[in-house]
């Protein structure tokens, strides 16, 4: 099938491109070529708008997935550019020279996932969490329940229900 991203396959043979629905495409590329691909998309293909930059923690594969969502305002196409980086000592090249707001996204990823972006402005400065000394909290191995139990204490007289049991009782009382 011909897609508006066919010429990407020619320029970046390592890129894996597939279609989700009309106007939404996925692209996966090795870490080393990501900044080159994103720069090409912005400068040549007209993907001028960086919508989102975020990470997904695939702890079972020991990988972080970085997703850059770019938008072409003329052709009305979104593309999700993805790359995988190892979870141990994760480092990625910065793209703050392409979009100003990327520095904010990278600062948040540094804080929440521990992914370093050397050279990104203020990347080591706390963004949301001040005085945090635990592991980066958005990683899958950070136990929110344990943290809450250690940090806070329940109000006396408060009734707590296990959500699953409670929903079962209320919504599906006949289920075994």
């Amino acid at each position, binding site marked *: 099938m011909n897609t508006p991203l066919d010429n990407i396959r020619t320029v970046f043979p390592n890129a894996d491109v597939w279609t989700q*629905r009309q106007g939404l495409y996925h692209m996966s590329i090795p870490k080393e070529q990501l900044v080159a691909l994103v720069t090409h998309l912005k400068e040549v293909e007209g993907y001028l708008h960086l*919508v989102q930059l975020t990470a997904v923690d695939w702890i079972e594969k020991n990988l972080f997935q970085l997703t850059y969502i770019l938008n072409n305002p003329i052709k009305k196409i979104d593309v*999700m550019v993805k790359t995988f980086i190892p979870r141990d000592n994760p480092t990625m090249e910065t793209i703050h020279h392409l979009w100003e707001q990327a520095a904010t996204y990278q600062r948040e990823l540094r804080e929440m996932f521990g992914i370093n972006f050397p050279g990104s402005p203020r990347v080591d400065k706390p963004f949301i969490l001040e005085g945090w000394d635990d592991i980066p909290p958005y990683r899958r191995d950070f136990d*929110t329940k344990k943290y809450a139990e250690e940090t806070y204490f329940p109000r006396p007289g408060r009734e707590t229900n296990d959500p699953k049991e409670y929903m079962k009782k209320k*919504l599906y009382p006949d289920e075994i």
Partner: protein
Amino acid sequence: MKFKDIFKIKEDRSLYPPLNSEGKIDVDLSSHKYVKLWHGPQHPGITGNMSLELTLLGDEIMDCETHVGYLHRGFEKLMERRKWIQCFPIVCRITVPEPDYNEYCFAAGVEELAGIEIPETAKWLRTLTLEMARLQSYLMWIGGQAGSLGMGIVGQWSNYCRDLVLDRFEELTGGRIYHMYIIPGGVRGLLPDGFEKRMEETLKTIEEFMVDIDKVMFNNAVFKKRTVGMGYIDPKWIYQFGITGPNARAAGIPDDIRKKYPYLKYPELDFEPIVGKDSDIYTRADVRRRDLLLSVDLIRQILAKMPKDGDFKAPTPNVLHWQIPAGETFIRSECTRGEFAYYIVSDGSEYPRRINVRGPSYTHAVALLEKMIINTNLADVAGLMTSLHTYPPEIER
């Protein structure tokens, strides 16, 4: 004095400190030349729980840094530990004054991954809810913009009007602020009896008040003098800083997601994106005022065209064991501040793998505001900030 003299930019910068190689100034607080001032988090001129760390020379801003984190509740992390249906009452709490866009983006993302087609009536009811949310959010914003420039009475009028819209929300959904109405699969109910009549009364009241607000605020000499030519956003910055919504439209970029990437029932409604051209605080305010009146018109169109009965929710599986097929998706909608988007990743289990929220304030309040605020007067900071219409909760989620 002639008009052009009033707004003349002083070109002689010899009184000001030189910039270093990074384009910033070297601040030496011990020289007693500069003052550091925290504008917020407890300040009436700040939009919610955030603060600006300002460096002043006299009363002119030399440097600014946005600080957030006063309202971090970790929603994205919370949702990873909850079943899909348990995320539904959480998402609306991400953006306090406009929860419905969160509900819509989350529900639409889940439906796309699970392959659910929602009934027609539900699509109309969702469109109605989103427009009502837009209306009440703009009414709240008008009060903030007027109040930040010293016109307290406008805020009292507009908040009265907003309360009337909240009354309609209460009738429709049972909640005033958080509605929890747009559920994955459809909506939670049909219109109550006599809703259209009461909605029409509310819209008429809002239109009457908007005439007064137009006179008192938009034709006010003080408001004009303080806002025309102030807080200019260069159209070149639009994609460089990720500016969306009314802030971009006031700069002449006709990007309205309702028109550009039509969703729900917007293709069946008759409207054109509201665009301005001067890109200053006044134009942004005017774009939002006209967008508010457009919402009033759209609500009338929706109520005239929509079916009043029929199915409003597609059948969904047992929510306790609801597994969403593995995949990822991206859903966007146009909220009052710009592009509101959800990135949802499912690994095929009963829990979301990752949900990431893209709030428009994320780009407006940090990178853009820090650039725009340089060389403005301290007294204009509140007005400038409100003109970007930022909500801190969607920055820190």
